[in-house]
C-alpha cells in the first residue's frame, strides 16, 4: 500500500483551493509491475521502459527476418494457455500462430467451452491452468484490470491481450513497429525517435483499449498524439492520459497535422444508452478518399481491426496504397513471437 500512504501523508491545505479538484494526476513514464507479478508479464504498456520496448522490437525484427526454421524450436515443449473471455479472431489467431511458430504447445480456453461458463472465478481458472502445466497465460477479458488479478494469483507471466476498456499493449507494440517501418526508422526507440511526427487516433476512444495503449506509448517517443472524436466517445479527461496529448473534435483539422491516421471501430456493443447518430458520425469522422487527399494525402493509414467498412473507413482507403492495415497484422505475429519469447525467458527480450 505504499502508493496509498504516500498520497495520504501529504499535508492538507488550510483551505481548499477552488480549482484544485480539476488537477490531473501526472502519469509516470513507467510503472514497473508490482511485487508478485512475473517480470515476463505484459499487463500495461506503461510498465515497459523504452529500452525494453527497443529490445522487444529488435527481437521481433530478428524473428520476422530470419527463416522460420531458425526459431521453430525456440519454445519447444513449452506450454501456453490462451484464456479468452471475449471472442477474438485476429488477436487470438495471432498469438496462437506466434506460439506455434516458436514450437510451443498451446491450449485455448474460451468462455464458450469451459468451466468459466459454470461460474468458476478467474483466479481458480488461472490456478487450474497453472496446475495443468501452463507456463504463460494470454488473457483476453471484458473486465479492465483482470490481467493484474490473474498475474497476481498465478505468479505466471501473463500477456494482456485486451482487457475491458483498459489496454491492449501488444497492439501498441505492433502499431509502433508498423509506424517505424512505414516512416523508414530503425526498430529501436528513444525519447526523440518520433519527434516531429503527429499521430491522430480517431473514433471511439472512450471504449478503446487500443487507443489507450497507443496514447500511453507514442508520446514517450516524442510523437504528438491527437485524439479525435465526438464528446460522447472522447471525454475531456482523455487529455490527461499523457502529457503532450491533445483533443480535437474536427477530424479535418486533426488530419491536416498528421503523418499517421489511426482509425478505430465504433464499438456498437458498448454503446448501450448512448445517443450516437451513426449517419452523422460517418459524415464527421469517416476516413474516405476525398477527405484523405484533401487533408492528409501522405498519411499512413492504420486500423487495429476489425474494421466496419463503410462506417469509420471506406474500402478505397482501407485497401489503398497508404494503408498499413495488413502490415499491422503481419507485424502482430512478429511482436507476439517476441512477447512470448520474452515471457518464457524471465522477462528478457
Amino acid at each position, binding site marked *: 500500500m505504499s*502508493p496509498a500512504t504516500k498520497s495520504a501523508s501529504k499535508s492538507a491545505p488550510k483551505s481548499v483551493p477552488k480549482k484544485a479538484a480539476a488537477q490531473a494526476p501526472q502519469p509516470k513514464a513507467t510503472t514497473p509491475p508490482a511485487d508478485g507479478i512475473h517480470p515476463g508479464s505484459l499487463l500495461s504498456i506503461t510498465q515497459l521502459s523504452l529500452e525494453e520496448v527497443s529490445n522487444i522490437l529488435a527481437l521481433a525484427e530478428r524473428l520476422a527476418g530470419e527463416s522460420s526454421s531458425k526459431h521453430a524450436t525456440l519454445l519447444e515443449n513449452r506450454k501456453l494457455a490462451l484464456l479468452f473471455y471475449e471472442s477474438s479472431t485476429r488477436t487470438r489467431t495471432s498469438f496462437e500462430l506466434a506460439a506455434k511458430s516458436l514450437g510451443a504447445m498451446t491450449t485455448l480456453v474460451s468462455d464458450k467451452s469451459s468451466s468459466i461458463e459454470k461460474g468458476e472465478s478467474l483466479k481458480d481458472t488461472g490456478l487450474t491452468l497453472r496446475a495443468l502445466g501452463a507456463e504463460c497465460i494470454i488473457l483476453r477479458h471484458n473486465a479492465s*484490470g483482470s490481467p493484474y488479478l490473474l498475474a497476481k*494469483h498465478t505468479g505466471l507471466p501473463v500477456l494482456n491481450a485486451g482487457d475491458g476498456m483498459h489496454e491492449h499493449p501488444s497492439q501498441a507494440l505492433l502499431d509502433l513497429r508498423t509506424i517505424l517501418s512505414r516512416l523508414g526508422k530503425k526498430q529501436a526507440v528513444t525519447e526523440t525517435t518520433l519527434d516531429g511526427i503527429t499521430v491522430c487516433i480517431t473514433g471511439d476512444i472512450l471504449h478503446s483499449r487500443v487507443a489507450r495503449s497507443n496514447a500511453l506509448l507514442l508520446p514517450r517517443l516524442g510523437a504528438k498524439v491527437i485524439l479525435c472524436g465526438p464528446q460522447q466517445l472522447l471525454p475531456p479527461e*482523455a487529455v490527461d492520459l499523457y502529457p503532450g496529448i491533445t483533443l480535437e473534435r474536427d477530424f479535418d483539422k486533426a488530419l491536416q497535422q498528421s503523418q499517421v491516421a489511426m482509425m478505430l471501430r465504433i464499438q456498437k456493443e458498448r454503446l448501450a444508452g448512448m445517443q450516437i447518430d451513426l449517419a452523422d458520425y460517418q459524415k464527421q469522422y469517416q476516413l474516405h478518399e476525398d477527405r484523405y487527399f484533401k487533408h492528409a494525402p501522405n498519411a499512413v493509414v492504420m486500423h487495429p481491426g476489425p474494421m466496419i467498412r463503410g462506417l469509420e473507413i471506406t474500402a478505397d482507403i482501407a485497401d489503398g496504397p497508404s494503408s498499413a492495415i495488413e502490415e499491422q497484422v503481419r507485424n502482430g505475429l512478429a511482436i507476439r513471437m517476441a512477447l512470448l519469447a520474452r515471457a518464457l525467458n524471465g522477462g528478457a527480450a
Partner: protein
Amino acid sequence: MKSILIKGGHLIDPPSRTDRLRDLLIHDNKIVELGDPGKLNATAKKEGAEIIDATGLIVAPGLVDIHVHLREPGQGYKETIESGTKAGAMGGFTALCCMPNTSPVVDSPEITRWVLSPERNAVIRVFPVAAATRGSMGEAITEYGSLKAAGAVGVSDDGKPVLQDAVMHQALIAAARAGLPMIQHAENTKITVGASMNAGARAFRLGLRGMSVEAESGIVERDIRLVRELTTSGKGPRPHLHVQHVSTAKAMEAIRHAKRAGLHVTCEVAPHHFMLTDEAVEGYNTHAKMNPPLRSEADRAAMVTALLDGTADCIATDHAPHAVHEKEQEFEKAPNGITGLETALSLSIKMLHHQHRMPLLRLIHLMSTAPAHIMGLRGRGTLAPEAFADVVLFDPKSTWTFNARNSPSKSRNTPFDGQTLPGVVKMTISEGRVVYKA
C-alpha cells in the same frame, strides 16, 4: 456489583472539557466519580474496587461508530454481530450503529429486535439503524415510530439513496416526528450505473467507469433544499438530516452552507476518505474499492479541513466486511467496502492529531461525544457521573502493526493491513465490563 478504579491516567472528557490527570471510579455499569490523582483511593478501597493502572495512557469515553455493517441477519460469512463487536472492542469502540442492508433488510420491529437479541452475543452495545423505506427499495417509508420503539436509533437505506424527492420529503417529516435522524447515503445512482471508482483522468486511463463528484453533491444539495423547505415552513418538528460518508469537497461545501443557515444537518467522514486518494486504486486494488469511492487529493484534503473546522461532525468507519473470495475478483465485480473498526483511532491519530495537530480532546469529541449525540445515545460519549461506564484506555504515543489476520473480524478486506500505526488501544470497557485487553 463491582467497582473499578482507573488510576494514573490522563483523562479526556469532551463534554466537561476535562483534559488532565484524573482518576475514574466505576461502579457496575455506570461512572461514579472523577477525582484528582489519589483522591478516590479511599472510596475505592472501601468498595473493594479492582484497580487498573492507566499511567501513561489516555482514559476517554468509549468510541462510538455510527456507521458499520455487521452483516447479520443473513451474511454471517462476512461478519456476525459477535465478531463485528469484538473487532469494535479491539478498536476502542463501545457503541456501534449498524446499517440495515442485511438479508433480510432491517425494516421491521421484529428484525430490529432480532439484531438486539442477547443471542447475538454482542460484546459492546449495538444500536440498529432501520431501513428508511420498505426493503430499502426507495418507494414506501417504513414505520419509524414502531422501529424506534423496537430500538432503532435512526433510519437509512445505506448502500442505496432515497432518490425520489417525494419519498425523501416524507421520510424527513416522519423521522422528525419520531425524533430520529434521517440518514442518507448520498449518491445519484441514476448516473453511477456501472461505475466503480472516482471519475476523472485516472478512471479513464484504467478503463473504469467513474462516479462523478456531482453524483454525491447533487443529492446532498437536494436533501438540504428539502430540509430548508421543511424547516422554514415552521410546520411540524425540525428535520435532522445526517449525511453519511461525505467524500467530496463539493458536498462538504453544501453542508457548510446549510450549517451556517442554521439547518439541522450533520455529517460523518470515514478514515479512508481522509487518508487515501484514488491513487490507491492503481493495480486494480479491490481493497481500495468502496462507495463513495476514494477521491482526488483536493477532496481528501477538504475532508481533513472539514474535520478541523467543525463542518464534519464526526468520524465513522463504514466498516464493511467482505469475504476474501469476494474481493479477489475483477475490480468491477468486487463488492464495495473495507473494514475499519480496528484502525479508525490509529488512522485518526496519525492524520489529524500528528499531522494536523488536532488536540486529542477534539479527536475524542469526533469519535465519541459527537457521534453519540447525533444518534441520541444517552449516557454515551461522556465520562460524566451517571453515564454508562464505556471507557477506552489507549497509548497515543506508541505504535503497533496491524495484522488483519489477527482481528476478531471475520473479514480482512483492508488497505491498511501490515501498516505500523500510532495509538495503541490497551483496554476497552463496555458498561463496566472489560471487553478488550491488549
